Each structure stands twice: as structure tokens, then as C-alpha cells.
């Protein structure tokens, strides 16, 4: 589905990602974990070209996103992203947040877009909020709307950057439940998270990043019980 080949990213002289290669299969759920500043967000943002890789390739559905001839906007329409701080459009209602991109970027007709949006709001349990404005919602509700907004484009891949880190503890579960549901439905997902419970329970694979290096990669059971590297062991000791 998406293949990362020798990805390196520098901000000036600061090498934030170093020679990362991995491949994510259709339907797979991958969790990226690692210490703060290790490059997790940057890695995720390279996958939809919000950051331009310094070198290396990102191949999505046979097309290299780093190739300047690839229509990046068209590809981004097929890759959903959920941010830590939601970034809902504050001047649009919840329903408009969901229908905006399908209408304006994809050219879906209004009736179809609204129908789809209502179906998604129902799925994330927010049907009664369709006319509300984002800033009247709680954090958990905002994040569920943000997930629904991304899903409204019918993406083939979903990227999550610490989707629960900005939430009050009591709201984490409602968002994780939506994500678990999504994983169960077969969505391909890449999730940067500090929720080890989620990573262990839902992910098919863990990527452990440290100082911009993909230090360890493996299935959750192995990773959490017998981390191979001292750095990973250290990290897990601190966080668990």
C-alpha cells in the first residue's frame, strides 16, 4: 500500500530522519512509538508530503510521491490525516467540515456528500452535532469529527499523529474506540501514539523510532515483552 524507501529528512543541518525503509500492507495497522523529538511526526508527515523528504522515496499505490510529476493533491485525497490538535475549520459547521473537501476537492455532488457525512457522524456517535460549530464541542468530540472529516474523503490509508495526546483523560477512550472500530473494518492505519494499550491491542506491527532511526520493528507481543534494543527497553521501562 505504502512503501518508504531510504527516507531521510533534514531541517537545515538537523538530520531528523535517517534512512528509514519500511512497507505497510493493505489493511495493516502500524503503531509508531518512540521518545519525544525522535521524528515520529516528521515521519508521518512525510507520508503525505506535508514535509518534503530530503532524500528517499515514498511510494503510494505504485506512485512516488516525492516525484514532482506526481499530483500530490490527488494522492492526498486518498490519504487521511488526523492531527493531535484536530485543526477543524472553526468557521464551518460540523457537517460542513465533513462535506467541504469532498465537495470542493473531489467534486462529489452535495446530496451524496451530505448523506455520506451524516452516515459518518452516526458512526462516530455525533449525529446530533451536525449543525454545531467545532468550538462548542469537547476535545473528544472534536477529534471524532476530525476522524469523520478525514473518512469523508474515503481514504485508503489513515495517518494519526498522537490523536489522543491533547485530550483530557476521560475523553481518550471515546476516540480510541472509534479508531479500534476503524481498524476492525479493515482500514490501513499508521498511528503515532503514546497509548501503549492501544498499540499492543490493535496494532499488527510496532515501529520504534529513536533519534530519527528506525531502531526496531516487530509485532506488539514480541516488542513489548522482549524488546531487542537497550533503547527500546529503556523507553518501555519509563513509559509503562
Amino acid at each position, binding site marked *: 500500500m505504502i512503501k518508504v524507501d531510504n527516507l531521510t529528512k533534514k531541517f537545515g543541518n538537523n538530520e531528523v530522519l535517517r534512512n528509514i525503509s519500511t512497507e505497510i500492507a493493505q489493511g495493516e495497522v502500524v503503531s509508531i512509538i518512540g521518545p519525544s523529538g525522535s521524528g515520529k511526526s516528521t515521519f508521518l508527515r512525510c507520508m503525505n508530503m506535508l514535509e518534503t523528504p530530503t532524500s528517499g522515496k515514498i511510494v503510494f499505490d505504485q506512485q512516488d510521491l516525492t516525484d514532482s510529476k506526481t499530483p500530490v493533491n490527488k494522492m492526498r*485525497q486518498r490519504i487521511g*490525516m488526523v*492531527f493531535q490538535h484536530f485543526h477543524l475549520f472553526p*468557521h464551518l459547521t460540523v457537517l460542513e467540515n465533513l462535506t467541504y*473537501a469532498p465537495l*470542493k476537492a473531489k467534486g462529489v455532488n452535495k446530496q451524496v456528500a451530505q448523506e455520506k457525512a451524516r452516515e459518518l457522524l452516526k458512526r462516530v456517535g455525533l449525529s446530533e452535532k451536525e449543525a454545531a460549530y467545532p*468550538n462548542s464541542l469537547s476535545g473528544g468530540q472534536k477529534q471524532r469529527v476530525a476522524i469523520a472529516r*478525514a473518512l469523508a474523503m474515503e481514504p485508503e490509508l489513515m495517518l494519526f499523529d498522537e490523536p489522543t495526546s491533547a485530550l483530557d483523560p476521560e475523553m481518550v477512550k471515546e476516540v480510541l474506540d472509534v479508531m479500534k472500530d476503524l481498524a476492525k473494518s479493515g482500514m490501513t492505519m499508521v498511528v503515532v501514539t503514546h497509548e501503549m494499550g492501544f498499540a499492543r491491542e490493535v496494532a499488527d506491527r510496532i515501529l520504534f523510532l529513536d533519534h530519527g532511526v528506525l531502531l526496531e520493528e516487530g509485532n506488539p507481543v514480541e516488542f513489548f515483552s522482549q524488546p531487542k534494543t537497550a533503547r527500546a527497553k529503556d523507553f518501555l521501562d519509563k513509559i509503562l
Partner: protein
Amino acid sequence: MNLDFSQITPYIPFMLEGIWVTLKFVAVALIVGFILGTLLALCKISNIKPLNWFAIAYTSIFRGTPLILQLMTFYFAIPQLTGYDISPFLSAVLAFGLNSAAYISEIIRAGIQAVDKGQTEAAMALGVPYRQMMKDIILPQALKNILPSLMNEVITLTKESALVSTISVLDLMRRAQVVGADIYRNFEPLLFVGLIYWIMVFGLSTIGKVLERRLKVSDQS
């Protein structure tokens, strides 16, 4: 005190007509300034270096020279260089429009850059094309930051518009001078149009305050 307003009474309709001239002038100059200013602001935030340079140089020139000099330049230089006999009104609109475009572009640039960067990223991540994103997501939010300073610019423009009297556009100011010359008394007509300017500016700032309050109410954040 030697004040006699009775003498200007017959001239009042003549002077009041100046309100229309001034307002029309301000409105047209403002529209030119706003459209051009928006384009310049987009050049300033663009990734294309030559566009940046152009917009920065433009702003620097129009902010770095006296407005009255720009006005005179358009009025005298265009006929001399091109042979086109430009009307006072048109040269005034050009000078003021191009000049306020420089100021307005700064206001809009700052307003756009004050919009949370996450908004751009969210729109980009959804695959929304740049133009659509600017039009539907960024500019509407920027407007809220822009409006107060924009209102200031309108007020400045209204007051500064009196400069066009120097190239004999028959605006409020010019009419006061004409009447003054006619009746050999300058103070009363000047006082009279001064009052009109003040009322116009007062009206504009009131409208500005109302608009701002409206935006705050509809702003659900």
C-alpha cells in the same frame, strides 16, 4: 469674534455635493486598493521568490515616498510620458488606489499569517487545492484579523483624500476653497467641510465597530 455663517448659506448645496465626490473617490480607490492589496499579499506569502521581491519592492516604494508626490506624478507624468490626457479624478484614483494597495497588502499578509498554521495543513492533508483553500478556509478566517486595521485604512484614506484638491478634483476640500475665494472668507467654509469630514469619519468608525461586534458574535470560537 468675527464669524458669519450666513454668507455661506447659498453655497451649502454646492459644498454638500462634495460629499458625493469624496465618497465616490474613496470607494473606487478603496476597491482598487483592496483587490491589488490582496494580490500583493498573496505574492508576499507565495513560495515564488520573484513574486515576493516584486511585492516587497512595490510596498517599499509606495510607503517610502510622499503620497502627494505620487499623486502629482500620476497627474503630470502620465500626459508627459504617454500623451494620454489623464483626468484629475482618474489620476487621483490611481495614486490613492496603488498607494493604499501597499498598506492593505501588509494588513492582509499579517492577517493571513495570523491564521493557525494547522488550518493550512488540515486543508492540504485533505487534498484541497491551494486556491480553494485560500478562498474558503484561510481568507475568511483572516478577515477577522484584518477588519479593524482595514477600517483604519478606510478612515485614513477618507481624510487623506483631501489631497486631491491640489489637482483640482472638486471634492469637499476643494469646494471649501472655491467658496472661500468667492466670498473672501475662508474660515467658515473650511469649518463647515471640516464638520462634514468629522461626521463621515465618525460614521465609518461606528460602522467598523458594529461589523467587528457582528464578527465576534458569529465567531463561534
